[in-house]
């Protein structure tokens, strides 16, 4: 306890926000694994603790706090002590009625005391790392509380009010939703601070934004993330530049922003943010790099029609498993293998929200297949005076040839036609025409379809399949 108090005292004296935040952190640091337990004492009352805290922040040379500040910090650390008791209880399951929900509620009081301190302009901006700790652990406790609650009760709650419909809440994230609201309060607290930038809470904005993103992603509330993005965009000129924040926060922010754009199908922006996140990411942060690549690879497939090299994926076995079968099928223009790979990985793809993007890789597989037809089709007979180099590829290709290729490539090893909806035998010529029309429409092929002649007329001069050399 004494160490704890002197930590607080020292932090307040030197106005060291990080040290104060460390004192507030409700988790044991690596060098002091029993920290929470030493704070947790059965033989002491809250009043006594508060008195000690008040004493610590009051009577010490060097600590010059106003009365309001003393009261406010006493309140924060008094609540903090109460929360520690609940947390230790929840960790140990010691008391019969202990739970993470209680720990969450107790911690929420800590956060409330903190927020009040800022709202009443008692706390100065140097102490904002405390807000981050407050929000971050609120989120963590909420997750634990929800998990605990889910084990204890069923999945669907009943409508307890007088509403018209039978079912109340669908989701099992009540506590985390609440945490989201509280963290949003911190966000508002930071972004609306009008103090000069040097002493503004705006320096907390990206920290809190990242907390919000993490929370909303877990809640699957992407639309709320978009709101945050919008609000950031409007205030951006008044914010400290993103690159003035620690790299860890930059990477986190860029990753989430990239994924949000990715989900909105704004692949150009997504690529920009994700690439930047990937470049900034610490080279040893394998897990983070893997996460970034999970979205950057599909993004790349759509924007540039390129596939990841084996070297890029080499350090990440999980990504290899995820992308290699698909990549191989796309490269070979093997529609059957593509459909099979997509189905095989479906669950994982959907879980990571990349299914709907990867699905579009089929276009590239198809393009590669049609390109093969074009190449195999050979050249026009040499005309008089033409040299071998000058001869041109056959550019008028019967639709039947493409149709045959599609049927051939749609076969799945094992014989059964894949459920992607393209049965090998049942593919009609009209459907192949439709696929060809799509290729042309999407600029994957250059040329036109002549129904009258039943042919595809491709452009000459090495531009039939833009970007592929033929």
């Amino acid at each position, binding site marked *: 306890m004494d160490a704890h108090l002197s930590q607080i005292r020292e932090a307040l004296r030197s106005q060291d926000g990080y040290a104060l935040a460390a004192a507030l952190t409700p988790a044991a640091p690596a060098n002091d694994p029993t920290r929470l337990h030493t704070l947790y004492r059965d033989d002491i009352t809250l009043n006594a603790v508060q008195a000690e805290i008040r004493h610590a922040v009051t009577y010490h040379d060097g600590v010059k706090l106003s009365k309001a500040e003393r009261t406010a910090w006493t309140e924060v650390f008094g609540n903090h002590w109460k929360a520690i008791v609940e947390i230790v209880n929840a960790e140990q399951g010691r008391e019969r009625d202990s739970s993470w929900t209680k720990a969450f509620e107790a911690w929420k009081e800590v956060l409330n005391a903190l927020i009040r301190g800022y709202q009443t302009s008692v706390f100065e901006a140097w102490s904002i790392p405390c807000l981050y700790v407050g929000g971050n652990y609120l989120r963590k406790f909420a997750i634990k509380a929800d998990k605990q*609650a889910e084990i204890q*009760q*069923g*999945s*669907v*709650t*009943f*409508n*307890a009010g*007088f*509403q*018209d*419909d*039978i*079912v*109340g809440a*669908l989701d099992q994230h009540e506590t985390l939703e609440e945490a989201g609201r509280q963290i949003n309060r911190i966000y508002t607290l930071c972004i609306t601070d009008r103090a000069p930038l040097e002493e503004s809470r705006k320096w907390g904005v990206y920290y809190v934004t990242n907390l919000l993103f993490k929370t909303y992603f877990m809640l*699957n509330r*992407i*639309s709320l993330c978009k709101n945050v993005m919008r609000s950031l965009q409007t205030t951006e000129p008044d914010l400290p530049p993103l690159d003035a924040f620690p790299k860890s926060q930059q990477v986190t922010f860029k990753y989430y922003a990239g994924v949000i754009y990715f*989900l*909105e*199908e704004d692949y150009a922006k997504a690529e920009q943010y994700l690439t930047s996140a990937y470049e900034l990411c610490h080279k040893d942060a394998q897990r983070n790099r893997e996460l970034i690549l999970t979205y950057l690879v599909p993004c790349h497939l759509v924007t540039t029609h390129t596939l990841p090299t084996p070297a890029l994926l080499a350090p990440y076995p999980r990504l290899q498993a995820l992308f290699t079968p698909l990549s191989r099928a796309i490269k070979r223009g093997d529609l059957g293998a593509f459909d099979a790979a997509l189905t095989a990985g479906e669950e994982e793809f*959907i*879980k990571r*929200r990349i*299914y*709907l993007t990867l*699905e*579009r890789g*089929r*276009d590239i597989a198809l393009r590669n297949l049609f390109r093969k037809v074009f190449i195999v089709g050979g050249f026009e007979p040499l005309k008089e005076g033409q040299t071998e180099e000058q001869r041109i590829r056959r550019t008028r290709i019967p639709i039947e040839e493409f149709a045959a290729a599609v049927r051939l490539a749609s076969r799945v090893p094992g014989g059964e036609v894949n*459920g*992607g*909806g393209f049965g090998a035998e049942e593919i*009609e010529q*009209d*459907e192949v*025409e*439709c*696929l*060809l*029309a*799509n290729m*042309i*429409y*999407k600029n994957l092929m250059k040329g*036109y*379809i*002549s*129904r009258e002649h039943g042919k595809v*007329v491709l452009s000459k001069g090495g531009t039939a399949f833009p970007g592929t050399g033929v």
Partner: protein
Amino acid sequence: MSRSASLISRGHRPTHRTLDTPAYNTVPARRTLAPQHNMVEHTQAAPKPAKKVNWSPEVREYVQRSFAPEAAIPGIERTEMETKLKQIITQAAECGTLESIDWTKLPLPQYYIQQELGTQQPGGPLEASDMSPNWANGSLKRKMDVDVAEPADETSPPWKKLNGRSKDFGDRISYASKSQESKIDKRARKRQEELKAGNESKYNADLEKRKKRFDIGKPGNESPRPWQNLHHSYRDDDNVGGSRGPVIGTCQTIEKRYLRLTAAPKPEIVRPLSVLEKTLEHLKKKWRQENDYTYICDQFKSLRQDLTVQHIKNEFTVNVYEIHARIALEKGDLGEFNQCQTQLRALYKESLGGHPPEFVAYRILYFIYTCNRVDMNDVLTHLTITDKQQPAVRHALQVRNALALGNYHKFFRLYLDTPNMGAYLMDMFVGRERLAALANICKAYKPDVNLRFLTEELGFESDEDCVQFLIDANAQHLISEKDGVLKILTAKAGSLFELAKATAFRKVDIKGQI
């Protein structure tokens, strides 16, 4: 009795009328005697010599019904019932409510006894019997069928008497605070609700017979229930007047207008399950006959409300939401449709029956319509392999896949072969997909295509429809005739369809409306 007598009676009635049921004059309390017109009402209402009781036919019939062997509830002695019966009638006479009570609708005395027993002996054998697994799924459905089909023959098991209303109320208070409830409790309650429904439908079947005998006309506006006071006093005796927890309805009207609740509803205006079941049949018939959506929607909303306030959550609930969703879909009322969908999604999670694949398919189609990728991904997350094999779900997924890849050929084939009512949803986006396909075709095909080709590729019913669509899209200048064949000059379309497509997709911003 003469008309003048009835007038007199009306003259001095108001003194105590105003105290209990002020709405007396408008109360069509004697619906059951409707053929004799309003005069009858006065006749009945006229004071009979209070002491020398000349029981009305209704009261007599009530007594008869109470003693009928099929009304007996095992475990309740006949003498007990007699005492209660006496008490009911005496109290009514003393309060002067003999005439105002609708005896045809008053629950039988044994019913009240059952309730009281319920309060005295909570728990016990009931919980034990509920430990059996599989109860919720299998037997539930059967039970309901049995109850509705042959109510009279069903003998109550001995523990049935523990399921009186007041017991439910005690229980339900904890239920309202949803969180602490264990699965077993939930099952127990569901079962109680079922049982209660059983009781009431039995009691109700008699009622229906009577109603038919008297050939009552419109059941619609039978709003006030004159016996509510008496009934209330019993409830209060049982100490069940608390406002928390679900209500147990006592209202017997089939139809009811929807009103948004701001407080717990009175039991008298809530219809119990047995009545709601009739309501549903009635509404289905009316919908078929009259097709009046405003009316039907209103009625369904009140039906849903009654289910909610009574916490009735079973296969019937699912059925109600499914039917309302289908009707709303047919009428293009997406707001209501979505509300039902949300509820159904939760109800399906509890495996209460119904048609989950059909409605999962609607969800998928709906998210195609709203271009909602995030929610679409969500739907996909929750699909099981079995789900995906269901024809409706398979179809919806293929539609999604076809559109994702721009495969309009496949899309319009699927459109023409949509299971269930999915076509109503697909109709909402088929127009814009035609524009998209046209943009595509016009870029890919040169110099022209036959009109017939478009008609077939874009799923039009006839060439005329196709031409009309082109005209509506301001593309009439692309239609030309060559050698007696109508052609579309794709090469001349320019960005016409591209722009139209962009506009059509922009308009879909109705997500907030969900």
